[in-house]
């Protein structure tokens, strides 16, 4: 388990309880996907790098803003509705539009200068290298 996301706040504790209950009742739905607001994000970690992926279909790359302050990443932007010339008649409208803004806590302090983002097939991928100062240091134990 990843500790940063399990801070003992009452809210998180409630969420966890609810999830556990859902699993007990739902039985087979064992895969843990936390409900979220748009866009849905996944967090991955590797050696000294974190990767965040987000599902942002139909959002243009220039409409996405990424900012990193301390250990918090904020993703904001807008998904614009399609514009039509002339009259159209909607049969069905399920694809939401509008502005979005979300913040997520990073697993460690990152080097904001080296953050990279790529957008492909409606999925945004942000690569966040760990800040040098934050990297764990090995301390050699000297035998006396």
């Amino acid at each position, binding site marked *: 388990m990843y500790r940063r996301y399990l801070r003992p706040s009452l809210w998180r504790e409630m969420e966890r309880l609810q999830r556990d209950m859902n699993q007990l009742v739902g039985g087979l739905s064992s895969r843990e996907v*936390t*409900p979220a607001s748009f866009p849905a994000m996944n*967090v*991955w970690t*590797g050696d000294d790098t974190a*990767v965040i992926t987000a599902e942002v279909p139909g959002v*243009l790359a220039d409409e996405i803003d990424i900012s990193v302050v301390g250990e918090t990443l904020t993703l904001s932007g807008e998904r614009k509705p399609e514009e039509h010339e002339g009259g159209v008649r909607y049969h069905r409208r399920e*694809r939401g539009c509008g502005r979005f803004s979300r913040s997520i806590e990073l697993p460690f302090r990152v080097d904001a200068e080296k953050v990279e983002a790529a957008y492909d097939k409606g999925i945004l991928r942000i690569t966040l290298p760990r800040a040098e100062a934050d990297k764990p240091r090995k301390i050699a134990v000297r035998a006396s």
Partner: protein
Amino acid sequence: MTNGVPTLEAQKEEAPVLEGAERTRERRAYVPRSDIYETEDAIFVLADMPGVDEDSIEITLEKNVLTIAAYAESSDLGDYEPVYAEYESGDYTRRFSLSDQIDQAKIEASLRDGVLKLMLPKAEPARARTIKVKAD
């Protein structure tokens, strides 16, 4: 929202399992959120399918039933460990029954930024037919 545009949602809706037919792939399948609108000459379908490649979409139109099936690549990132998840990648599947006759030969499909756009031109006889009511 104004003009009946829904608000943004992050959760994908899971596709129901068809009765008597089990999915061959052991992955989740989702119902892509879609917009459908009509102009004088065509019907347009827009479907949100993040993670899908143009080569992995199958679109069929049979007896006025439009079927969209797409296979999304796994989102696993090789050397990275997942530590927190709000979405899962999976396949997409959806069927619509169309009320108009479609000119099958002229259907166009494009994929951009994870959104599929289908243009289904109405067949000639189905186009604007105005029937004048004559007064006696």
